[in-house]
């Protein structure tokens, strides 16, 4: 069974359960796994966050819950139709479509939450259900050919800004590649530097420009590249707690999406830099840590995802030197330095 059939079946079973219960004169209910912080657990084996087994019951007999059930079945019907017709809709479109329904949503926030309820209840991502995020994913440059429908895309021939990962990345097939690794960078500035300096050639790599916090589609892309093409993923961000965390969400997933992390997290991805050690070793231009940076670093120390010794050492070191540095700070030694010197040295030490 492919993902579409699974999604359609699961959606159908939601309706079947209700109809069967009512036929037996029972009051039907839906089990919705709890998304509260106490039900979000870090799985040491899987190395990402997962949902625990606590759940809430939504009963048809409860005044406060019955409207949510109505909203869920309505949305499930809408999604089933999307999946069957191989269409997608954004959450915003879904919200406007719901205006014509017999149940309404107070605002888009309310419809987004029901969407998440549907995801966790069925154990599917919203992309599986035909619901797409608004924003595009990251930019990809390098020797990779993809097939989207019947159109072949070459990530080397999609212009200097590369191929933009589509929200429907799961529909895309990897056809051909000639790379040994993936390097994802936080800023588009660094992305363009690497394209200009032909880093893709030098390191036989795909260059991915994350544009800050990685979108769901980007994370899904990185996971698929890592697992399907079996090539290592490196992440290079700013050397500060925020850069660390952008990398960690790619590696171990976020708490908020605990129910779909198994499809999004890339536990084998590695953080290449900028580390506190890099700041010292390369004598990078720095800014002092702000109060909020210090606070965030201390939070990271308590976070189970940072339990690795290397992370703990680097975080403590940054707190000690009380400094942070941006990716672009290598320019101190010339624009080419980062590609000519930094990346080769770092990759060598990590591989």
């Amino acid at each position, binding site marked *: 069974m492919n993902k579409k059939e699974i999604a359609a079946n699961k*959606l*159908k079973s*939601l*309706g*079947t359960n*209700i*109809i069967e219960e*009512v*036929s037996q*004169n*029972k*009051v*039907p209910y839906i089990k919705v796994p709890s998304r509260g912080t106490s039900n979000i657990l870090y799985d040491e084996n899987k190395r990402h966050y997962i949902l625990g087994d606590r759940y809430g019951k939504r009963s*048809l*007999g*409860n*005044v406060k819950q*019955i*409207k949510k*059930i*109505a909203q869920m*079945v*309505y949305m*499930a*019907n809408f999604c*089933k139709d999307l999946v069957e017709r191989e269409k997608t809709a954004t959450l915003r479109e879904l919200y406007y479509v719901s205006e014509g329904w*017999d*149940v309404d949503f107070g605002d888009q926030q309310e419809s987004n939450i029901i969407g998440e309820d549907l995801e966790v209840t069925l154990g599917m991502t919203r992309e599986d259900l035909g619901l797409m995020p608004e924003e595009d994913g990251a930019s990809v440059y390098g020797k990779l050919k993809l097939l989207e429908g019947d159109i072949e895309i070459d990530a080397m021939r999609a212009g200097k800004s590369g191929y933009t990962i589509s929200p429907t990345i799961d529909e895309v097939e990897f056809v051909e590649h000639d790379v040994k690794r993936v390097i994802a960078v936080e800023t588009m500035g660094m992305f363009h530097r690497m394209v200009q300096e032909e880093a893709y050639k030098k390191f036989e790599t795909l260059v991915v420009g994350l544009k800050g916090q990685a979108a769901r589609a980007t994370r899904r892309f990185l996971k698929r590249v890592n697992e399907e093409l079996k090539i290592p993923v490196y992440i290079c961000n700013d050397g500060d707690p925020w850069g660390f965390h952008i990398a960690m969400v790619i590696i171990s997933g976020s708490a908020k999406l605990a129910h779909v992390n198994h499809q999004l997290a890339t536990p084998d991805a590695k953080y290449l830099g900028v580390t506190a050690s890099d700041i010292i070793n390369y004598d990078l231009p720095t800014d002092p840590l702000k109060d909020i940076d210090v606070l965030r670093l201390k939070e990271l120390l308590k976070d189970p995802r940072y339990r690795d010794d290397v992370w703990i050492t680097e975080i403590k070191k940054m707190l000690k030197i009380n400094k942070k540095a941006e990716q672009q700070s290598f320019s101190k030694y010339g624009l080419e330095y980062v590609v000519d010197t930094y990346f080769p040295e770092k990759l060598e030490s990590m591989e």
Partner: protein
Amino acid sequence: MARQAGELFEEFQELTASEFFRKNKQMLGFSGKIRSLTVVFHEFITNSFDAAEEAGILPEIKIDLKRVDKDHYILKHIDNGPGIPEDFITRVFCTMFAGSKFRNIQSRGQQGLGCSGCVLLSQMTTGKPAKIISGYTENGKLKGVQMILKMDVKTNMGLILDKKEVEVKETGVCVELHFKDVSYSLSEQGAYEYIRRTIIANPHAKITFRDPTGRKYIFNRATEIIPPLPKEVLPHPKGVTADDLIFMAKHTDKRRFRSLLTSSLSRMSTKRVNEIEEKTGIDLNKRPKDMKWEEAEKIVDLFSKMEFMAPPTSGLIPIGFDQIEKGLIEILQPEFVTATTRKPVTYKGGVAFIIESAIAYGGEAGRIVGDQRKAEIMRFANRVPLTFDQGSCAITEALKSIDWKRYGIKDLENAPITVFVNIVSTNVPYLSTGKQSVAPEPEILHEVRQSSMKVARKLQKYLRAKKAAKEEEMRSKIFETYVPIILKEAAALAETGIPEYEHVLAKVTRRAKAELLGEVVDE
């Protein structure tokens, strides 16, 4: 050249009461145009009530207020009381302090200046005489007399300008007076509101009022029970002053001070008198008239240190919670009303009082401000509305200190609520000469709080039940709305037909109702 004292004192002259008040009319309450008219209404209405009740008649009053010029009004006040015998008419309407004596009795009257004060105001502002018609029975015969009167302020006596016999249909008094410098207002302090509140606290009375625009208001009585007449009770030792003792000593027919004390004060046993004699060293066997001020002071000082039984409360006649409820229902047609009458207690250790509280919600309760109903506080002392000086009054203070949120009233100011408080006492402690606000004696504050909290609790119970009923209705509506939708959508999802669901719908509705009522839900 300096004048001699004798010359100066040639101009010194004694003022009669009438003359004094002519110069100080604000002391009669006649300050401000609106307030002056309210005081006039108060004096005539109170007099009519007292007269009717004493004669065992259910009071019925007709008031007609005409405006002849900007602030020139003619007031016609007609009652159904026993009337006034011809010989007493001038005393009632033209003599200040008529009948004033030391009496410890619960009364509506606040200043005792009454009708003569109103006649004085009329005469001072318009120069016109008063027209009085009195119908009364004499030797079993109905008699009627009409008088045109003026007040001679120099002598504090009435001048009869004209007098004739007239035919009357029943007993009662009709007064017609001209006033200037007064103003009719619909505000809280105005005459109309005064009548409305009076009727609430006196549900046995009927008042028909025609206002200056010609509009006729009929305030019907809500009960046929004439309240029992208050009895005079002896003052309690803790409630008297040295001056009171001297006054009693002057007016008594007792021959010894000892017997004066036991006969003029309550709770004064021989044992207590002996105790006083022993502790003060004053010979109580001497004649009352020989009592010196210092001695009276010494005795009063001792009273405050001695222990006495609480004062008798037989002289206090509350309106009664059921009568208050009737009055509020008649006038406000509220959605909910409740009242309570507390047991008598004392303040300052010796003055008995009773607090009565009521609360009315919805209907015409509350005061209309703009297009919204806001809470209003109605204060009364011995059934008389207190409409001025609200801010400084103990009743207001006590009500404001209550945490209304605890009683389900989120915002008292903006709730359609009328809070009614009546203080009943032979001696209401007023804060100022206007007698419009009650002094914050701790016991009074406490009683107002307790009684008002009790009625608030009842209102809370009502509001809760109302909310629950509304919720129940909302709940069954929710099921009726959503169950069919869910089944339609679920059937579409399951790609099957919609099953019979009436049974499940009935089940959930029934269960939700049981839950609301706090009953155990069986699965």
